[in-house]
């Protein structure tokens, strides 16, 4: 699958000097990152499955009539960014004036400076083979600049549209200024029901006392998706990540957060309801580098027949990171004997004054609770729905914004309705 000459060509053909430098460096990272594949993808046979579907990993740059894509955006959206097959379509996007969104290659030299310490510096492309390939194959990095003290109400939606039978690469870099507060909601929309593949790598730099809400939802039928989000937090910053996954032939999410200074706060929430022989893998890591930071992680999921869930949560607490608080939990409900979950916490702690807890559970629907509800006249189907949606509420309850929360609650209800087809 990893055709070295194809990758070399991509590096050769790069015209932008800085980008070419990044690609050259990444080419050298192919071997080391491939070494980790066996361990990091133990339960997710990603390469084996996509090898059969794709002969080449070269990207596609075909784009159809823009109107066709505009139709995919609901009327209710106020601010949205449309990216098709990796290319930003500014013409059909609706951008708030407060933030600057541009292709990296189109930036002036001074503006590039802002992103140079982040772009391909904070991602996991020396560790995860898919990020490495993204670093080599992406066409243009989309940069988001939020100036200091910018506070935006509501959310900005990012529509990543995959409309190609060749692999598609999305690449983004965020710079969130001091004292700013913003919310993004990212979606991946495939124009086919099966066999498309997209690979997305995002790097987010959060300056002092900034606040970010970042939502991702994935419901991609029988398509493939790799998503790596890498976050670099400065002191007093707060991040809230919400990842909702419903279907996909294979979805692999990497969420890596580095708390590089004091008093950072990172919240990572996830909910998955996996159906139709889907395979959803969430790998997260949080790295406490400096003292007095808090990380709080809770992923919950419901897995239906013939589907697979994988959760791996790494917590690192470095020697300097005294007074760290790190919590992690992963709870699963299996709806059938043929549903599978592999869940694993991985803690490495070098500091001594640390509060750390973790717990994983895998269980069935509570039969006693089901009988209790049914004994009051509620049908099995509705009783199941009540219990399943109750299971999701402690995740959605964490969404601060009421509109966004309702939106995701409804989305989950609809998915549970489908899951619960008995």
């Amino acid at each position, binding site marked *: 699958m990893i055709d070295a000459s194809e990758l070399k060509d991509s590096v050769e053909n790069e015209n932008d000097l800085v980008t070419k430098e990044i690609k050259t460096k990444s080419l050298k990272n192919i071997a080391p990152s491939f070494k980790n594949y066996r361990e990091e993808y133990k339960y997710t046979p990603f390469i084996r499955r996509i090898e059969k579907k794709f002969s080449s990993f070269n990207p596609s740059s075909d784009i159809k009539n823009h109107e066709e894509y505009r139709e995919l955006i609901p009327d209710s959206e106020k601010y949205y960014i449309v990216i098709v097959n990796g290319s930003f379509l500014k013409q059909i996007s609706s951008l708030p004036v407060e933030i600057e969104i541009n292709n990296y290659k189109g930036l002036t030299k001074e503006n590039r400076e802002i992103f140079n310490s982040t772009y391909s510096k904070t991602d996991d492309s020396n560790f995860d083979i898919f990020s490495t390939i993204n670093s080599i194959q992406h066409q243009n990095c989309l940069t988001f600049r939020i100036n200091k003290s910018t506070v935006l109400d509501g959310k900005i939606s990012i529509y990543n549209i995959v409309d190609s039978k060749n692999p598609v690469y999305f690449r983004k870099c965020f710079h969130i200024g001091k004292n700013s507060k913003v919310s993004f909601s990212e979606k991946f929309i495939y124009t086919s029901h099966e066999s498309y593949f997209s690979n997305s790598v995002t790097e987010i730099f959060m300056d002092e006392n900034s606040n970010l809400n970042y939502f991702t939802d994935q419901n991609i039928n029988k398509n493939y998706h790799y998503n790596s989000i890498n976050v670099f937090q400065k002191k007093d910053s707060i991040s809230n990540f919400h990842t909702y996954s419903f279907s996909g032939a294979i979805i692999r999410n990497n969420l890596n957060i580095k708390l590089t200074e004091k008093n950072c706060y990172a919240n990572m929430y996830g909910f998955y309801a996996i159906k139709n022989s889907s395979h959803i893998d969430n790998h997260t890591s949080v790295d406490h580098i400096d003292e007095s930071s808090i990380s709080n992680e809770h992923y919950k999921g419901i897995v239906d027949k013939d589907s697979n869930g994988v959760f791996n949560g790494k917590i690192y607490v470095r020697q300097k990171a005294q007074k760290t608080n790190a919590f992690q939990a992963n709870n699963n409900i299996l709806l059938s004997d043929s549903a599978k979950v592999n869940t694993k916490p991985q803690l490495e702690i070098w500091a001594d004054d640390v509060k750390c807890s973790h717990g994983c559970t895998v269980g069935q629907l*509570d*039969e*006693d*609770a089901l*009988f*209790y*509800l*049914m*004994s*009051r*006249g*509620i*049908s*099995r189907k*509705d*009783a199941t729905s*009540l*219990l399943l*949606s*109750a*299971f999701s*509420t*402690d995740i959605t309850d964490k969404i601060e914004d009421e509109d966004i929360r309702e939106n995701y609650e409804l989305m989950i209800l609809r998915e549970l309705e489908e899951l619960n087809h008995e």
Partner: protein
Amino acid sequence: MLEIKNLHASIDDTKILKGLNLSVSAGEVHAIMGPNGSGKSTLASVIAGREDYDVTDGEINFGGSELSDLGPDERAREGIFLAFQYPVEIPGVSTTNFMKTAVNQVREANGEKPLDAVQFLKLMKEKMKLVNIKQELLSRSINEGFSGGEKKRNEIFQMAMLEPKLAILDETDSGLDIDALKIVSNGVNALKSNENATVVVTHYQRLLDYIVPDFVHVLMDGKIVKSGDKNLALELEEKGYDWIKVKN
């Protein structure tokens, strides 16, 4: 109304009910007493339709039809209600929300229009008063963090909401202080009519001072071994179950 004949039930191959007969008519109150582990809760669960139990022989008729093919939800819609000995805690589902679903599904099954939000609230207020339960408790997750007495009160509240034909109260008096016992008993008595019947499972004669039974049955080792009127309960309290064993 309820006709149980030669009922045999087991769980995981352990025989628990071993040829039980019981007949309850509309307007009656029956009390079932018996030592721990004799099968009282099992009987209640089997009537309510818990699927973990295998009914290996015998039959249960309710209102003229056989129950064996009906699930617990269908039995509830036919008018059977079980107040659990150990009510389950269900995080994330409020009693209010749950009762709204339940009441409307039962109404729908009986060809009645569902209640809208206002009508439901009115019904709830009325029934809350009956068992003296606070709104705050009902908007919390079902039974989660409730005291023992609050859980039992919640059971009777649900019974009041659903107005069943046959109510089975499994040790609803256990864990209640004397005031709560009065409140719960008043609730049960207020709902009593010529059309419905009540079966109370209890260890204590004192409950029967409040909910006066027409019949008292003694359940031992999976069978009803003795039946009588309310004086049987007094006699049992005085002499214990050994008295019956000896007599048999």
